[in-house]
């Protein structure tokens, strides 16, 4: 159940919430949770959990939700310019899915006792992060195909292990999301296949889009394992199941044959099959670019956030009017009764 109404901690647990000393009881609870996670059991919304576990989840789930919502912007940019009615309908459905995924995830985050409005405020004030991939521009129609193929492809790699994460509401939201995500990747690849059958100019557009999105897509898996600050605890708590580098390798191994079928070249001269490893080797990632975008200096950071804030502010009167209408109706119903 996703309700917060019964979420009242017992007194001995309250002590740590106030930053008080770690009681014996507290240590027992923590050991209990660690054992549960190690056995592959789920933690549910009202179960006791260590404060750091709860905070990690709130941070990760809300950032994930923000990413889905901000992710609607680069693609929404092309809805009115889709080349055919069929592609327009597909893109609309896809962007609506992203909105839906954001809603599933906000709902999962709220089971941890945070208010939706506070999460949204954190995004709008710039305090909360979202996936840096959405700070790149969508310059031509092929970008929509490449986002489906590579960006959603990378997201699927990241998200499938989350279906088994230790926090029940998050895992269930991820199962719903993954079921829908496969359509996103396939429609993107299908779009690119169609363009590749077109004119030389259309094929150039696809290659250009791949050149721009390939490296940012590899960065989506996050810093190398040796440099990832949050990984250790997340793996211990069963929130993260597979390391950044392992997921990235899996993604490259899957993308190379797909690129060949498409007939494009991946923009990495170091890309080479390594017989001994049984994997594709790839060149070094430019992490200065990654951190630059994460820290707010990507091509579209300001535009994306400004668009989000404006959409929220433009909708304020609707939210208020709906609330006022509901209150008026309730009053009328009471008078009639």
């Amino acid at each position, binding site marked *: *159940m996703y309700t917060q109404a019964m979420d009242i901690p017992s007194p001995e647990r309250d002590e740590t919430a106030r930053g008080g000393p770690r009681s014996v009881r507290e240590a027992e609870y923590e050991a209990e949770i660690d054992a549960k996670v190690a056995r592959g059991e789920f933690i549910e919304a009202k179960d006791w959990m260590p404060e750091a576990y709860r905070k990690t989840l709130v941070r990760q789930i809300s950032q994930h939700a923000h990413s889905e919502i901000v992710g609607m912007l680069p693609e929404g940019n092309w809805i009115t310019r889709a080349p055919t009615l069929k592609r327009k309908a597909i893109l609309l459905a896809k962007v609506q899915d992203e909105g*839906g995924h954001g809603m599933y995830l906000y709902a999962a985050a709220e089971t941890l006792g945070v208010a939706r409005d506070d999460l949204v405020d954190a995004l709008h004030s710039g305090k909360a992060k979202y996936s840096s991939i959405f700070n790149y521009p969508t310059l031509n129609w092929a970008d929509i195909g490449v986002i489906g193929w590579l960006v959603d492809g990378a997201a699927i790699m990241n998200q499938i292990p989350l279906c088994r994460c230790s926090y029940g509401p998050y895992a269930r939201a991820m199962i*719903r999301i993954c079921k829908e995500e496969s359509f996103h990747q396939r429609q993107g690849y299908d779009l690119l296949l169609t363009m590749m059958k077109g004119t030389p100019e259309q094929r150039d557009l696809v290659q250009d889009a791949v050149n721009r999105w390939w490296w940012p897509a590899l960065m989506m898996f996050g810093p190398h394992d040796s440099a990832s600050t949050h990984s250790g605890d997340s793996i211990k708590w069963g929130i993260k199941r597979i390391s950044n580098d392992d997921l990235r390798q899996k993604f490259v191994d899957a993308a190379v044959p797909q690129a060949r079928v498409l007939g494009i070249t991946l923009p990495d001269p170091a890309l080479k099959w390594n017989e001994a490893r049984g994997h594709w080797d790839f060149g070094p990632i430019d992490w200065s670019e990654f951190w630059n975008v994460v820290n707010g200096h990507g091509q579209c950071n300001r535009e994306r956030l400004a668009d989000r804030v404006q959409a929220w502010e433009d909708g304020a009167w609707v939210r208020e009017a709906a609330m006022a209408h*509901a209150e008026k109706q309730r009053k009328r119903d009471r008078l009639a009764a």
Partner: protein
Amino acid sequence: MTEPSRQWPLWEVFIRSRNGLDHKHCGSVHAPDAKMALQNARDAYPRRRDGGSIWVVRAEHSVASDPDAKPEMFDPAEDKIYRHPTFYTLPDEVNHM
């Protein structure tokens, strides 16, 4: 910080994908009233042929058992093994009963 009173109330969403199955909890939505809660739930959850009926319930109206009271609540069932059919050993000829 937004004043909590201005945030639309939270509703729990239960969906039955087709007749013959139970309604199943699938998440929550915010909405000012029941009608919009149903509409928001319809938009957020069943976007493919996976909806036949939706229930929405104000989250504050649901009452849940305390996870800390799990032993008192559920353990008594564990020592009543005679409630299970496998408790009874019958002759082979009739053991499919």
